Structures are given as structure tokens and as C-alpha cells.
């Protein structure tokens, strides 16, 4: 590849650069404009409602023409999402949304393409497409609703369910070791990887904002409660009395720390090359881990993702990684544009005639 990667300019709109925007003086869109006329059919109390409300509330902030936004989903409870948004949308088939979205985003640089998926959809049946979208760095924002269960098929364990999960298909407990979606995304060369939670509207919205700003594949894992088949899966970090001690808020450039003022623990490096939380007062000479979302190597981000355990003693939340890397779709379009440009513009009939004739012709009179 030549040095000119055909990358559109960066900020203020990198992730949505090339997507038509509303005029500066146009009135701001409303949440209502992004709400379709379809009746929402999730179970009462489902975490999906909060995520939908947050997304509908956030989309106007992008200032994009509504017709240039597309939501593509797979199969599962969360994948009904596109029906409820008044944008273009496709509810596709199980696991394939990242592949379909890759084709759409690559052929249409003027669209803001979003993928909505779940833990079963993205990590089980569609695992291959997810990792390849991440490594290619297609300009997509992928919202992965993780409820650690199969909801739509009525309660089987999922690839993020904890070992020992008693579910419809595992009466004696599941023996499958789960995926950590953040670790997986980082291992798959993800350039933007974040985690947030359905019930924290403010945090969710801020992560969405940064995900949309990122040019490339943004993977946002959203902890989502399924009150029907896996109620309370995230209670330990939703419970106000406990969450402060458990949630590790990742802040770029700041030491990684957890716990309330006065009982704060700070993450330090151990002699063996690992990391551990120690009370702030005991840090002493030890090296404090400072979060760096833009670190070129994903090593530290990966280590942070491993702090997370099924016991939820410490759960990092926020943006793990946010680095720039040329996107697949920009480069594919650039190659085509460059070839067309070098040839002197779009093909004419006579260019096609030449292609059809090839180099070796003969004439019969």
C-alpha cells in the first residue's frame, strides 16, 4: 500500500467522516425522530429497553442525516433492535451481521453502519465474522449486548455464561469455559474495545460517543440484564452499595484504581510481571499502572481485561483500547478510486469494448 491510504480527515467526525451531515443551522434531531412506529416487544424489565432509549437519545448528537444511518443485526432478542429505530435497518440471520455490514460499509462510504448483536449471535454462531471484522478494522460500531444467556430460544447457557451454569440444556451445570468478549476483541486486533452497562445511561452514552468517533471497528460490550432467563447476572456491580468497590472505571492517562475515597485500591505491577490491586497507602515504590487507551500494543489493555472474573471482584468498565489503524473499507474504496483515477475516470462503453476484446483478437471478414 502506498502511503496515501485515502483516509478521510480525522476529528471532529472521524468515524462518521464522509457521511452527509445536517446543515449547521438545521434544528437538532429529536429522539422521537429516531423512534419507529413499531411496538417494542421485549419482555418487561429487559435491559434492552434502556439501551434502546440511550441509543435513540444519542443518535441526534451525531448530527448525521438520518437516512444515512443503517443498523444491521443478527438473530436474538437484541437483534430486534433495528425495527425500533427509524433509520435504514436490516434484521439478518444468526451471526452474520458483521459480514453483511462489512459488505455494506465497504461499498457505501457515505453510511454510518452499526451492528447490534448478542453474546450468542456474536461469539458463538457468528464468532468467525466478529473476529474478522475486528482484524480488518471495518468502519462499524458493534454493540454486543451480553446477557450471558440465550434469551430468544428460552434459556440455554451462552458462550459467556459462567462455568457451572444451570440452564435448560445444562441440568448439571455447564462445563464450557466462557469467553471474555473484551479479551477476545483485543486478541482479534480490535482497535476500539469498550465495556459499559445497560443501567448506566450516562456511561453508555459517553462510550457510544467515543465509539462513533472512532474510525474502524468499535466493539462495545454492553452488560445487559435478562430478567426472564438470567436475572441479576450483573447485580453485584449494579448494587449501589457494592459497585464502587467492584467497578474499575478506566480513565485514559489515570492510574487504574477501584473503591471509594478512603478505601481506594490502586493497580500496581508485581515482580512476576503481573498486576495486583493494593491499598493506596501501600503502593510505596511500586509501579502504578496508568491506563493508556492509545498504547500501540494491546498487551496492557489485555491484562486489564483479565482483571474481570466470574465473581466480579473487580470489573473494568470503559474504554480499554482506542488506536488508529487504516480501515478496511477506506482502503478498498481507495484502491478502486485510485485505479479509476489512473485510468482517467469511470469506464466508458469503449473502455468496456476494449476489455471484452482483450489483447488477442482476429477478424473474420
Amino acid at each position, binding site marked *: 500500500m502506498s502511503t496515501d491510504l485515502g483516509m478521510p480527515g480525522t476529528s471532529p467526525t472521524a468515524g462518521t467522516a464522509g457521511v*452527509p451531515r445536517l446543515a449547521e443551522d438545521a434544528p437538532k434531531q429529536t429522539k422521537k425522530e429516531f423512534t*419507529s412506529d*413499531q411496538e417494542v416487544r421485549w419482555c418487561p424489565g429487559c435491559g434492552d429497553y434502556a439501551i434502546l432509549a440511550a441509543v435513540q437519545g444519542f443518535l441526534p448528537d451525531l448530527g448525521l*442525516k*438520518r*437516512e*444515512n*444511518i*443503517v443498523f*444491521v443485526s443478527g*438473530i436474538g432478542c437484541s437483534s430486534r433492535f*433495528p*425495527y425500533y*429505530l*427509524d*433509520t*435504514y*435497518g*436490516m*434484521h*439478518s*440471520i444468526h451471526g*452474520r451481521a458483521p*459480514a*453483511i*455490514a*462489512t*459488505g*455494506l*460499509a*465497504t*461499498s*457505501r462510504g*457515505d*453510511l454510518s453502519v452499526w451492528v447490534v448483536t448478542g453474546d450468542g449471535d456474536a461469539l458463538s454462531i457468528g464468532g*468467525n*465474522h466478529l473476529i*474478522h471484522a475486528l482484524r480488518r478494522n471495518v468502519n462499524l460500531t458493534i454493540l454486543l449486548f451480553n446477557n450471558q444467556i440465550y434469551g430468544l430460544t428460552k434459556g440455554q447457557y451462552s458462550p459467556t455464561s459462567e462455568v457451572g451454569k444451570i440452564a435448560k440444556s445444562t441440568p448439571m451445570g455447564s462445563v464450557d469455559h466462557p469467553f471474555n468478549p473484551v479479551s477476545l476483541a483485543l486478541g482479534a486486533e480490535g482497535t476500539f474495545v469498550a465495556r459499559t452497562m445497560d443501567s448506566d445511561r450516562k456511561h453508555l452514552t459517553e462510550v457510544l460517543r467515543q465509539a462513533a468517533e472512532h474510525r474502524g471497528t468499535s466493539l462495545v460490550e454492553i452488560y445487559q440484564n435478562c430478567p426472564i432467563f438470567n436475572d441479576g447476572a450483573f447485580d453485584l456491580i449494579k448494587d449501589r452499595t457494592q459497585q464502587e468497590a467492584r467497578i474499575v472505571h478506566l480513565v485514559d492517562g489515570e492510574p487504574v484504581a477501584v473503591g471509594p475515597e478512603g478505601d481506594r485500591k490502586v493497580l500496581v505491577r508485581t515482580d512476576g510481571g503481573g498486576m495486583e490491586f493494593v491499598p493506596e497507602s501501600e503502593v510505596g515504590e511500586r509501579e502504578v499502572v496508568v491506563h493508556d487507551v492509545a498504547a500501540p500494543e494491546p498487551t496492557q489493555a489485555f491484562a486489564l481485561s483479565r482483571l474481570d472474573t466470574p465473581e466480579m471482584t473487580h470489573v473494568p468498565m470503559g474504554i480499554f483500547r482506542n488506536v488508529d489503524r487504516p480501515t478496511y473499507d477506506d482502503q*478498498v474504496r481507495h484502491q*478502486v478510486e485510485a*485505479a*479509476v483515477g*489512473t*485510468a482517467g475516470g469511470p*469506464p466508458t*462503453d*469503449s*473502455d*468496456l*469494448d476494449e*476489455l*471484452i*476484446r*482483450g489483447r*488477442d*483478437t*482476429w*477478424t*473474420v*471478414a
Partner: protein
Amino acid sequence: MSSKSVQQLDRVVIRFAGDSGDGMQLTGDRFTSETAALGNDLSTLPNFPAEIRAPQGTLPGVSSFQLHFADHDVLTPGDAPDVLVAMNPAALKANLGDLPRGATIIANTDEFTKRNLGKVGYDANPLEDGSLESWHVHPVALTSITVEALAEFDTLSRKDKERAKNMFALGLLSWMYHRPTNGTESFLRKKFGSKPDILAANLAALTAGLNYGETTEDFAVSYEIAPAKMAPGTYRNITGNLALAIGLTTAAHRAGIPLVLGSYPITPASDILHTLSGFKRYGVTTMQCEDEIAGVGAALGASFGGAIGVTTTSGPGVALKSETIGLGVSLELPLVIVDVQRGGPSTGLPTKTEQSDLLQAMFGRNGESPVPIVAPRSPADCFDAALEAVRIATTYRTPVFILSDGYLANGSEPWAVPKVAELPAMTVEFATEPNDTDADGKPVFHPFKRDEKTLARPWAVPGTSGLEHRVGGIEKANITGNISYDPDNHDLMTRLRAGKVERIAESIGDLEVDDPSGEANVLVLGWGSTYGPIAAAVRSVRNSGAKVAQAHLRHLNPFPANTGEVLRRYDRVLVPEMNMGQLALLLRAKYLVDVHSFTQVRGLPFTTVELADAIVSLLEDDAATDPTSEEVRA
């Protein structure tokens, strides 16, 4: 020029055979180009192993290229070679069975060593033990003569020199059949431009081969085959895979929409991906995806965005793509699936031809999921089939199958090239504004409100203001496209989707029957790549004085409207297929006509002789059981 005698021939079949590493495909390709340039009609059949480099000198490693050329219209690559070029004992052994007695064998004696003979189970050297008496054998020390001819090239290793032996063979054959070599010379200049000594060596080997024929007593006769009488026009030689790539590109250009290919490498379809990846200048986007499913997914995603999404594959890939093709049926979006069929089931015979995916294309999806099917009949016809598939896909908003096969993919023939401006017009209309009103009389867009004539739904692409809508694989309410589980609606939508595909028949014309006598009682009906062999067999049967009709299906779903009527017009219908009778099954089911299935799955096209025999035996049956039929019709 020489004093040697020159004979006139009307047709020749040559087979070049050697080890996979001997460059036989290249040699065959070059000889083909020379032959095309001379104005002969021709047809080719490459035949190579699935392994890239099977052990040297063994039977599984034999690669061959057959070329049939003539001073008249050629329909097949030829049943049996008149000349076999055998670069080693394995090539001789693997091909001798196909060689009629009296045919010519040019054998590279250098490779007939004890070791190589042993590798293929020859106890004695067949070139010396008299076992080839019934053939006309030219033993030529191809390798050593080539090396000798290149003696002055000090910079080249012996191995490099040996490698040029295929050019020596090409030179010799070019002398024998009066082929011009200037095309090959400029080809070599292009190929080896950056390696001057290799280029010079190849050119020298080519010339040495020509001179060898000229001077050696062993070759006393050379042959001329006059140009064929072909319709006036500009011609090129083309393979099916290349014709498909160019056809798809041309179709998208005519339709004014981008071509987006999502694909995954698979034999024998990969060349279409390779070729299209080089067509960026024509605005073609190609994506080599992580798997077959992603390939078709990316194509469908692009179609949602207003491109013509195409995916190219072979049978095993179609199996993986099925669910996404079903989604395309449900979303009613254009999509072209190119299936270059090969021997199955499972991995089967990756490099060999077969027509056994017809029922997979027809039915290989869950639910009622009709997909139109177009099948090209010859390598050059792949161009027209591509245009037709894109026309149907964009007009009717539906996935369309193109069923090519390994024989068409790699085989070649001369093609009278069309002018783009003279091709049928292709227009694509995107929805731009609301097409309905809601209960309050407000204009709205209903994504499943259909065109009355075609039953196609509007194609509204993202970026079109006011037409924002959602589509999905869940059943949709007629007109509005909202999710609907209503029993009557599902029944209606299922019938609408089927009816839409049926209506394509209105745009494809009738099935034409070729029956010069107008008195035939027997019809031979084929589809796809069997056209050439069937036409050749029909011609040979007619030449013997019998009457037989021929028809060939290009559209397999829907069938042309008059298909049932044509079938019923004949006492007997013979349906030859390279499968176990898949078209026959469809015809019997749909038209209640007891067609005679004639099948073969050997990984190779039918020979003219075996098809002619099948036709003759059906003619005899017909005469035996219905002796009055001739009189009645007379």
C-alpha cells in the same frame, strides 16, 4: 520452406500431457491462441489434478490439455485425440486408453528411464517393446535436445534449461500444424520481460522445436487445417470463467450500478475472483472474505446498499451460503450466486466437472424459497448468462443462480465479441419517493408494495431521505413490510414470492427446438455445458440419415412457458446430464412427461460417440414400439 510434404486435414484433436510441473496447461493455451489466430474453430478441455504438485512422474500428477480444431464449426473438445504429446511414462499410461489405434504419439524419450517407468508400473519401456505398434510413435529426446539447443546460455542452470522443453514441444507442434508463433513470442516477452536470459532461452527452445520438425527425417509430413467459415466479426478466444467475470462487469456497467463481489477461494471458481480483483479500473470491488458465508453476506450487504452483489463459489460453498441466499429471497434483494459446479458430494472431485448442483440451486434452502436459475451452454455463453442473471436479479429483486461448471470454467472457444452499445439495455430504477399513503392520507413508503407487472418490490437504498425502512428475515406483512405472523399473510407472501419467480418466464422467450426435418419423433433436451456434446451427437446422428430434434434449456427456474408443450410434442425425450437425472426429475414432476434420463458422472464431458449411441438406441426403441409413427407423421 521445406521439401517435406504437406497434407490438408479438416480437423485435429491434440492432447498435451505431462507432469503437473511440465507446463502443459501453458503449452496448450499457447497452441490454442496460435490456432485461434489462424482462424480455425476450436474447443479446449484442460484436465488437471486437484493436488498442486502430486509426486513427480506419477499417474495422479498427470496434467493434460486437449484441443480440438477444425476448418468447420467445432462443438466439443473432441472424443479422442489424434495426437498425444506424452512428456513422461505417466502421461503415456494415463492417456493411452483414450487414444484410438493409428493415432500419433510424440513421446519424450528422456523421461522414459527405468525409474520413471517403474513409478507407473511399466516393466519394459513401451517405446521399445513393441507394445505401441498400433500407434504411430515419434520418440523425441525432448529434454536433452532442448538442453543442447540452449548450450550457449551459461548463466542458466540445467534445470532452467530443462524447463524450456515445453516450448520446444510447442515449436515442434507449431511446425507440424503450420501454426504462427509470433503470438507466443510476444507472450513470452511479456511474461519474462524482467528475466532476459529466461526469455531468450524460451524463445530459443521454441525456435529449436520448429527447426527440429523442419530438419528431422522422423517428421516427414506437416499438416494444414484451413480456417473455419465463421460469421464475420471480431473474435477472441475465451474461457468460461473469464467470460463470466467480463460479463458481470459489463452487466453492472450497463445497469449503472457498482459490482461488488464477496467471495472465498474455491476450485474451480477462484479464477473469477482473481480476474475481478484486477478489474478495479472498471469500478469493481472485490472482497476475499473469511468464509463462504461471509462472501455471500458481504454481497447481500452491498446489494442492500444499491450495488449488484455477487458471490462466486462451487457446490460446497453453495451449501454454506444457503441460509443467506434464503435471506435474499426473503428480503427480495438482487444477488447473483455463481456456482461453478464440480464433482460431489462433499469435496468430491474439485477439478472435474459435473452438473449435480441443479437440485441444490433449486431447493437447497429451508422453507419455500424459489431462486431463478440461469445456465450457460458454452464458455463464451457465460458472458450472456452473466448479463441475463444480472437482468433478472435487478428487475425482479431476487437472488439468481448461474450454474456454470468445471468444463465451461476452464474450457475455451472462439467468441465473436459484442459491442457494449449493442447489448440489450439494462435499467435499474431505485425508489426515490413515497409510494403509498397511510390511513390519514399522508404519503408513506411501503417497501413491499409491488410492481404490478413483475411483482418486484421497490429497491430503496440507504441515503434516500424519507424512505427509511427496516427489512428482515422474519415474515413481513404484504405491502408495509412490518413483522407479521398472520397465517393468511404468510400464505399470501409465499405465493407472491413464488409468483414473482414464475413471472420471469414472461421475459425469457420460448424454448426453441432445432429440428431441420420438422419430422423428428425424438427430442434431445439438455441444459448447461452439455450443449456442445449434445449438438455434436445430434449432428452425427443426422448425418447418418436419422431424424432427431434438439432443444437446450438456458433457464431452469422458471422454465420457458412452452416447455411442457415442447416435451409433449415428441414420442420420446432424451435428457442427458452429468448427474443422476436431476433435470429429468424436475421435468417429470412438473410436466408428467416420462423423459428418458441418460446420465454420467465421470468428471468429464460426454463424448459425442456415447451420446450418439444413446440417441440411436432411443430412435430404435421408438421405431420398434411405434412402427406407425413415421407413417402417421409423414
